[in-house]
């Protein structure tokens, strides 16, 4: 095949008018993606975006690639079939917190454990946007919404913990206010062989405005976002004055001055055991505490489609390519003349 042609953002933008509410966080995610694609050295025709239903799920319409806007919750399943059938393609899956964790939760966790070659972007705005404001499985307890006038009573999922509990090989988190960081996460997820999930904190300015303000606003980030960097001690704060230690198996936020830099946890994305990543995911079980972002886990495990292909190859090696004539005669036969 010839070299991948040089493209620009425009090449990756479809001719459809973008239809999110003005100010929606989805715009910045879209821009980040359209700007990133030319750098990935992939072809538009080999790229597919599959989504379910929701505001987030409109994403494929705006990418000048192949795309399917399917039905609510089913995109990981549909994408699984596509990725198995066509390992040559880059398959992206995009959806909201309702789409992926409520109705689609099961397909998501099964895709993750199987390690299907998918790049999954979960736009978490902690609300149902498209249906105009009901609470979602990531909404905080007590949230007053149209369907919970007295406040919700459901413990939310922590999407990162769910993914790690489901044997995910690549798990990351980013947010819609930092294009560079989003692009870095999307690139890493794309490059990962197997299922990669990126949770993107996304502001729904109409039904859940400012949900992440306390952590993602420019002036809050230093103090509130715990940036994970592979091989580096986990530090944050304006002057890196705070850090994360693993104490008796749980992650704790500490003052670096107090514990000394050597006591800090040195982040290792590639740890085969997901326990530490899980412990880190438990930091910030609420919206007001420092929250880890970055790649929590990135390990190698055989990609599903590869296994499928190799079984097919092995079968052809041992049995030869399919011979229909022979197949029809594989049970006892007799001749009538």
């Amino acid at each position, binding site marked *: 095949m010839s070299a991948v042609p040089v493209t620009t953002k425009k090449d990756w933008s*479809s*001719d*459809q008018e973008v239809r999110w509410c003005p100010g929606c966080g989805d715009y910045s995610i879209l821009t980040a993606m359209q700007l990133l694609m030319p750098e990935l050295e992939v*072809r*538009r*025709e*080999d*790229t*597919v975006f*599959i989504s379910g*239903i929701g505001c987030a799920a409109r994403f*494929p*319409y705006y*990418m000048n*690639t*192949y*795309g*399917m*806007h*399917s*039905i609510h919750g*089913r995109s990981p*399943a*549909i*994408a*699984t*079939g*596509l*990725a*198995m*059938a*066509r390992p*040559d*393609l880059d398959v992206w899956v995009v959806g909201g917190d309702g789409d992926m964790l409520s109705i689609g939760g*099961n*397909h998501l966790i*099964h895709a993750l454990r199987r390690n299907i070659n998918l790049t999954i972007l979960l736009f978490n705005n902690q609300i149902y946007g498209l249906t105009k404001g009901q609470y979602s499985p990531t909404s905080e307890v007590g949230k007053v919404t149209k369907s919970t006038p007295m406040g919700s009573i459901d413990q939310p999922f922590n999407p990162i913990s769910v993914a790690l509990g489901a044997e995910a090989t690549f798990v990351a988190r980013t947010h819609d206010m930092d294009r560079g960081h989003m692009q870095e996460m999307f690139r890493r997820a794309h490059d990962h062989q197997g299922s990669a999930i990126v949770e993107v904190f996304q502001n729904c300015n109409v039904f859940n405005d400012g949900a992440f303000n306390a952590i993602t606003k420019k002036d809050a980030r230093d103090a509130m976002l715990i940036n994970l960097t592979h091989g580096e001690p986990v530090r944050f704060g304006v002057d890196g004055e705070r850090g994360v230690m693993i104490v008796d198996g749980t992650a704790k936020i500490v003052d670096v001055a107090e514990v000394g830099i050597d006591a800090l946890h040195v982040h290792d994305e590639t740890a085969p055991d997901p326990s530490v990543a899980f412990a880190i995911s438990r930091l910030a079980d609420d919206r007001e505490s420092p929250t880890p972002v970055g790649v929590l886990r990135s390990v190698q495990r055989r990609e599903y489609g590869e296994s*499928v292909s190799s*079984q*097919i190859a*092995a*079968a*052809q090696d*041992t*049995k*030869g*390519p*399919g011979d*229909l*004539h022979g*197949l*029809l*005669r594989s*049970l*006892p*036969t*007799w*001749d*009538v*003349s």
Partner: protein
Amino acid sequence: MTDTVDRADEVREVERIIIRFAGDSGDGMQLTGDRFTSASALFGNDLATLPEFPAEIRAPAGTLAGVSAFQVHISDHDITTPGDAPNVLVAMNPAALKADLHTLESGGTVIINSDAFEERNLAKAGYEHNPLEDNTLDGYTVITAPMTSLTKEACKDLGVKPRDAERSKNFFALGLVSWLYSRPEEPTMLWIQEKFKGRDLVIAANEAAYRAGNAFGETAELSASRMTVRPAQLPAGTYTNINGNTALSWGLIAASQQAGLPLFLGSYPITPASDILHELSKHKNFGVRTFQAEDEIAAVGSALGASYGGHIGITTTSGPGVALKGETLGLAVSLELPLVVIDIQRGGPSTGLPTKTEAADLMMAMYGRHGEAPMPIVAASSPADCFDAAIEAVRIALEYRTPVMLLSDGYLANGTEPWKLPDIDSLPSIDIEFASELNGVDSEGREVYWPYVRNDDLARPWAIPGTEALMHRIGGIEKQDGTGNISYDPANHEFMVRLREERILKIADKLPPLEVMGDDDADILVVGWGSTWGAITSAVGRLRSGGTKVASVHLRHLYPFAPNLGELLQRFDHVVVPEMNLGQLTKLLRAEFLVDAKAISKVSGQPFTAAELVTKIQEVAR
């Protein structure tokens, strides 16, 4: 007990025999029946079989719930059903006798393993007295043999442990029955050696048991009961004995070869469909991909995803699974992508009778989706016909870019019949080409790809990911005709809804006209679909031999109907529709053609017998 009399020594020739092997689930009756069938097939008989499994549960040994049976009908002429009342019942234990004696023809032969008729087993079967000792079996020909002990005896010197030897008692039964009905010994011996290769003791035990059964026939002077059925005059060719699920799996593989596209099966196990998943997963060398999904929704979703990628997406299931797939099928209708949904129907509603047959999912196949979401429906009519039906379903799906429903049922799935292997070169061709070029011009004059432009068949182009320059987006929201862009325009929606119906109805244009079998000048037309084909064919044959004028027609296509169906129905005074449901096709015919079609319904979990149909049709004739 054995009340046979030594009347003659030669073997009587009969046209056909129906034998029912019945015993406990652990007794290996399916295998015994299967072996007897194979030997008869190789011998050249025509035949049809009906395995009957106990329900999904593992019932306690010896109980009625645990009875497993296998009925086989062998004949010297063309037959289409596993027979009405069996002529011979092999009962390996009291429960089997209790469960199945009532099916036997009056005066039929019962072959009994007398060892099993001891107190505990009798009690478990609910017999207060030993039926071998009271008048239960009066009027039947009874052959008893202490099969368990004779088998143990035969194995004594082989070094086989008695408990293991006991397991071979089904081969004793097989040996005995094979002697009685003059089946060749060789195929079974070869099979034993092949099957148990490396397990010499098992081979020895099974062989010994078989021979002991054979010998028992000789020595117990059962000659009077001996019969044989001559080979049938079947059309020349190579035959194999096949069940519906295997034929269906092979049909899918054949279709994949005819179309030149790889097969993708997304499935979730469910009785009686699982065997298609099992069968296809064996044939990865044909490039077949099988995926055991987390549920039925993921199964159909993955198949749709594969279809989107240019594979032939298939999903197999039974009723409860189809009930879960409705929403995704609606998406497939809207996307206009090929997809084949295979429903091996079983007794419903809900979990119902999972191991029994029924054909009550037709209406769900027609209407089990929200909105106007038409899907073609194809049905298989016999085990071997599943092969052709599968090819037809794939053909329609690919050529018209539509999800297709293929209906089979538990009876076809597990029943077998001899199948004359088709010439591979004569298989229907499936023409399908992927889009490779731009086909539209946008408002600014640029050449673009439009996914909803149509060909003469009203099918849209199928551009698969990876095709340069044809990038496009599709989805389940209403789209503009042509461009495929999202459209909320009222007139466009009205147009698209009607178009989606029209394009499916148009499939009928290229279907061959239906042919009436039987008497063209009859008053009665019997309309069939699905697995009733065998019983209807047989019943109509008998009625006509008996002088009743009757015609029949069998539908391969349930939606759309073949083009001449309406005209055909009008030609008869009475239209009757045997169905394993409460009259679903009947309703469709009445609504479509305003004919007073009447259903002959059976919903007992068992297929029609020809005899039942003869009676019911005669009632109409009168």
